[in-house]
């Protein structure tokens, strides 16, 4: 049982990391569709740096840095120059996949460096929770801590209130003296760091290997998770773990000999995403309450 839960946690962590970052970005009114691109760049940077220095921690930093660097490009264009956010985000994904493929060419199939699991005295020995969270890789713990932190930040702090104000009514926010552009850029960079960490998790924890497009659409799933969670951090955890469970369940079902076509099982996570999105779209009132009102709308400050 623990073994199954463990694989679910591993599958969910990169989704959670990327989704919680994107949630903050979208709460500030910016829609960054470049998650997949930032994630894959983070993955290759983390792998390359960890392999060449032998230190997986430097790899984690490099992953976060690479994600942030790519998000800066997006921030400069979509926030700074007020370009169309959807088009810019899509371009960022294509760009990221291309760059990562180019940089990573020499690293394909090379055994990498693995991030060692945590060992917290006392906590790691707790029943169930211990092996699931405190004896896992540090990024798993970080993903949960980040989610809790984001929840507190958004709804319990003044800075979080400002960020949400910028996402709901940027003109009004500017009128009361908030730096809309500055806050949005900061949010986008946070999203980049998180996506980069998610990528680092893929190549330093999930499999210590690099292949082109290792993200395999996880960035897009993270984007869907933000909608699934209706922009509430707590629900992102729920969504990510549910999705991780569906991903892993197919393998367990097969190994148990459940007579369901494996092709259908392989498609299950994606079908689940579509289903959830449809269900959410059907309940418009509940979603509207939490949707950042200015989501995806470029903002040009009056001077």
């Amino acid at each position, binding site marked *: 049982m623990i*073994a*199954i839960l*463990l*694989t679910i946690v*591993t*599958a969910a962590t990169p989704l959670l990391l990327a989704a919680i970052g994107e949630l903050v970005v979208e709460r500030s009114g910016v829609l960054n569709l470049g998650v997949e691109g930032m994630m894959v760049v983070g993955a290759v940077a983390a792998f390359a740096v960890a392999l060449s220095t032998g230190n997986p921690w430097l790899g984690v930093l490099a992953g976060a840095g690479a994600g942030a660097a790519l998000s800066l490009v997006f921030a400069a264009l979509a926030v700074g120059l007020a370009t169309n956010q959807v088009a810019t985000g899509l371009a960022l994904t294509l760009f990221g996949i291309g760059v990562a493929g180019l940089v990573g060419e020499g*690293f*394909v*199939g*090379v*055994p990498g460096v*693995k991030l060692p699991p945590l060992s917290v005295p006392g906590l790691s020995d707790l029943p169930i929770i211990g092996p699931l969270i405190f004896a896992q890789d540090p990024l798993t713990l970080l993903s949960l801590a980040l989610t809790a932190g984001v929840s507190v930040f958004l709804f319990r702090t003044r800075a979080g209130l400002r960020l949400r104000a910028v996402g709901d009514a940027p003109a009004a926010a500017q009128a009361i003296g908030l730096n809309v552009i500055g806050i949005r850029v900061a949010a986008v960079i946070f999203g980049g760091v998180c996506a980069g960490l998610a990528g680092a998790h*893929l190549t330093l924890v*999930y*499999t*210590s*290997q690099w*292949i*082109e497009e*290792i993200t*395999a659409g996880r960035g897009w799933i993270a984007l869907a998770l933000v909608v699934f969670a209706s922009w509430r951090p707590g629900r992102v955890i729920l969504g990510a773990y549910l999705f991780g469970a569906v*991903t*892993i369940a197919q*393998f*367990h079902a*097969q*190994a*148990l*000999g459940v*007579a369901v*076509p*494996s*092709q259908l099982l*392989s498609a299950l996570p994606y079908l689940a995403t579509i289903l959830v999105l449809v269900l959410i779209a059907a309940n418009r009132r509940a979603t509207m309450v939490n949707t950042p009102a200015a989501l995806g709308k470029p903002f040009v400050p009056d001077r």
Partner: protein
Amino acid sequence: MKRILLGAALALGLGLSPAAAQDPVRACFVYVGPVGDFGWSYQHDQGRLQVEAELGDQVETAFLESVKEGADAERAIERFARSGCDIIFTTSFGYMDATNKVAARFPDVKFEHATGYKREHPNVSTYNSKFYQGRYIIGQIAAAMSDTGTAGYIASFPIPEVIRGINAFMLGAQSVDPDFALKIVWVNSWFDPAREADAAKALIGQGVDMLTQHTDSAAPMQVAAEEGIKAFGQASDQIAFGPETQLTSIIDDWGPYYVARVKAVIDGTWSQSDKWDGLLEGNVAMAPYTNMPEELAAKAQEVEEAIRTGAFEPFTGPINKQDGTPWLAEGEVATEGALLGLNFYVEGVDGQIPN
């Protein structure tokens, strides 16, 4: 202007054609995975390098890696045919129809398709290796080494090649432990380290203590090493990924075949053929038997020798089909045709073949 250019190109082309006889033969390779997969595609590329090393100036090679099966494959093969390749090796089962389609349009180019069975045009040959010979041996080792009596098998696609491997593995295992159980997980991909690792973790979580695969990455070996169970390498010697984990590996060696076929093009003696070689011809080799007791390694060596010399054939009766109906009678050996089209499990394998 365009017409002038075209004319010039034609003149140039015509002017060059008499010299073509001395030009190096262009041998082109299409791979389904990256050459760095340290598995299937890597081994094909080793074969290509051997062609370069042995035939020197007489040959020029080129390759395309990570070509997806399907429409992409047809484009890639056609591009090669157009760009002046004399012989094209298409090295994945899923390239079968694409290869034959392109071959119809380029009758002067020779096509060699690995692991397929369609030769619709005289310029298409097929070639394969009897990997199942190795799978019988690793099945025996798995049954002898396992404490839980259960092995995990990560499978790619339900094609005869893969099903033959599963059956051979099971026959080998049953020859040691008649009650040996096998858990099979299909990942619907040849090369996807993340999915292969997920499948490996799920299998280990369900109590298998031996892991084997018919997918191309070394990710399952890495997972097995982390979890402290034993595993078998795939396509190449993967000992670097699990120095204390790998028991042996079925190694593909395409070099001799590639050299012979390219040489045939150079000499003008190439003709359509269908080759299915194994341990005897050196197409299939076993990595050193490691991480196991010496007696077991010696026994594996013996079986390997018996298969090589033809003294023993893994698919020898009595063998029943999965549902218990007889397939091969006592002493009856499966024909190559029956093996090439194998689409059912033998008795003792649980589960259904996805279709």
